[in-house]
């Protein structure tokens, strides 16, 4: 019985590992396409963690199989081997080893993370204002004057499309601001988002950009990136924000510069 278990355990470990390695090219099992300039660093970090923990996992499964096999084939008078000094030093050693591993991954990972989140945006980056609110995202472009109108939360009127609380009557800069429900950007151009929330905590998450950023009410949160592949990607809220959380999403459309210019011109004409 024990030997059968050891064999089955070993077979499951080898077959499932082989399955994942063989299907390594499949985006559904591994990572989705990376459409950002910085994403390779994140992917590299994830894969390193995956290989490290995967190797240890497989090794421990195989060792478990080996020990089960040994114990099942024990004879009269067979004695368990114990760690020198008993359990205590073994636990201490395990904590130290695992601690070093986690700290090392965090230090290496924080370099990648800080490179994305803690660096200033490129000076030529396209500024876009992002507002999250229950239960939709809205995006604002500065318009022809390159100036954003000031925000007046008391003037928010969703029925007339004033999602940001602009005051075009008194504020000239607000008149040409383009407000849309999709984030449309040109490919290969740095983008500088300023995220803010109208009500509760939301989160801006785009898998293909390898970006996830909480949006905390009361704060203006900067986020910058460059998209490297044209296409349509989903933006989802990843902080449970209320009843309609599951319906809170928008789309990121990465267009060529020409398509983007044409789109923006069309939007400006509608303001």
């Amino acid at each position, binding site marked *: 019985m024990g030997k059968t278990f050891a064999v089955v355990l070993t077979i499951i470990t080898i077959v499932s590992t082989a399955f994942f390695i063989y299907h390594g090219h499949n985006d559904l099992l591994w990572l989705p396409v990376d459409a950002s300039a910085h994403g390779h660093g994140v992917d590299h970090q994830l894969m390193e963690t995956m290989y490290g923990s995967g190797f240890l996992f497989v090794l421990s499964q195989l060792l478990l199989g080996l020990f089960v096999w040994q114990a099942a084939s024990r004879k009269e008078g067979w004695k368990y081997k114990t760690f020198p000094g008993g359990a205590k030093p073994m636990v201490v050693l395990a904590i130290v080893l695992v601690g070093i591993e986690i700290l090392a991954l965090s230090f290496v990972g924080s370099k990648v993370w800080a490179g994305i989140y803690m660096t200033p945006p490129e000076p030529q980056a396209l500024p876009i204002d992002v507002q999250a*609110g*229950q*239960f*939709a*995202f*809205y995006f604002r472009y500065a318009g022809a004057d390159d100036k954003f109108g000031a925000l007046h939360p008391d003037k928010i*009127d*969703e*029925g*007339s*499309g004033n*999602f940001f609380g602009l005051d*075009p*009557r008194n504020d000239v800069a607000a*008149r040409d601001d383009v407000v*849309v*429900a*999709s984030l449309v950007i040109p490919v290969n151009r740095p983008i500088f988002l300023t995220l803010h929330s109208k009500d509760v905590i939301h989160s801006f998450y785009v898998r293909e950009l390898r970006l996830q950023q909480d949006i905390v009410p009361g704060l203006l949160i900067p986020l910058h990136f460059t998209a490297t592949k044209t296409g349509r990607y989903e933006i989802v809220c990843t902080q449970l924000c*209320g*009843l*309609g959380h599951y*319906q*809170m*999403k*928008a*789309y990121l459309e990465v267009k060529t510069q020409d398509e983007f210019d044409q789109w923006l011109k069309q939007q400006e004409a*509608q*303001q």
Partner: protein
Amino acid sequence: MKRPYIVPVVLVLLVSVALAALAVPPPAGGSITGKVTYTGTPPKMKPIDMSKEPNCAKEHAASPVMTENVVTGPGNSVEWAVVYVSASDQGSIPGTQTLKFDQKGCQYLPHVLAMQVNQPFEVVNSDPHLHNIHPLPKINAEWNKSQPPGTPPLTEKYDKPEFIPVKCNVHPWMHGYFVVLNTSHYSVTGADGSFSIKGLPPGKYTLTAWQEQFGTQTQDVTIAGGETKTISFVFKALPY
């Protein structure tokens, strides 16, 4: 000279007249018709991006739904204005017919639902996804109800007159109005800005036109007999 048959004849005549009077409805009364228009530049109607709700984006792919806070048409007409008798009302009939307020293609149909106090109305979700209906009254009791697809209609009513904005928390662009009135003498302007109020007994009335963005305007009208008066309301529009 005795005419014994005169009594039954007179009786028959009297009964016939009485019956005829009952069968024929009372004179229809006067009516007021007219148009609601604007001068100046109204805010632009903007296309609504519904991409977050793929069902609705698909449904309106050919012609997007436009913002409805100010809906204008040829001849400076103003749609979705409510014209009603706001004072000196007489001959009003209680509203008993159940009205319908539909959520279809992420839009409220009709945009403005005018009704009388205590008149029942049904809120219907015709979409294959959840809506939540959240009217924002200040005088009446507030409620906020979630309506998953396939839910039976909600039947509601309001007991005080009020102009109540309606929104959907899930689809922030959805916007409508419940206009609760104390009178059956009201009319919501159509695409050509026209309205028509019928069945007004002779008398002097105060007529109000309401539009969600433009506010209200009032005029006094005197109706004599079964005449039809033509009245127009002109709002001053600003682009912002």
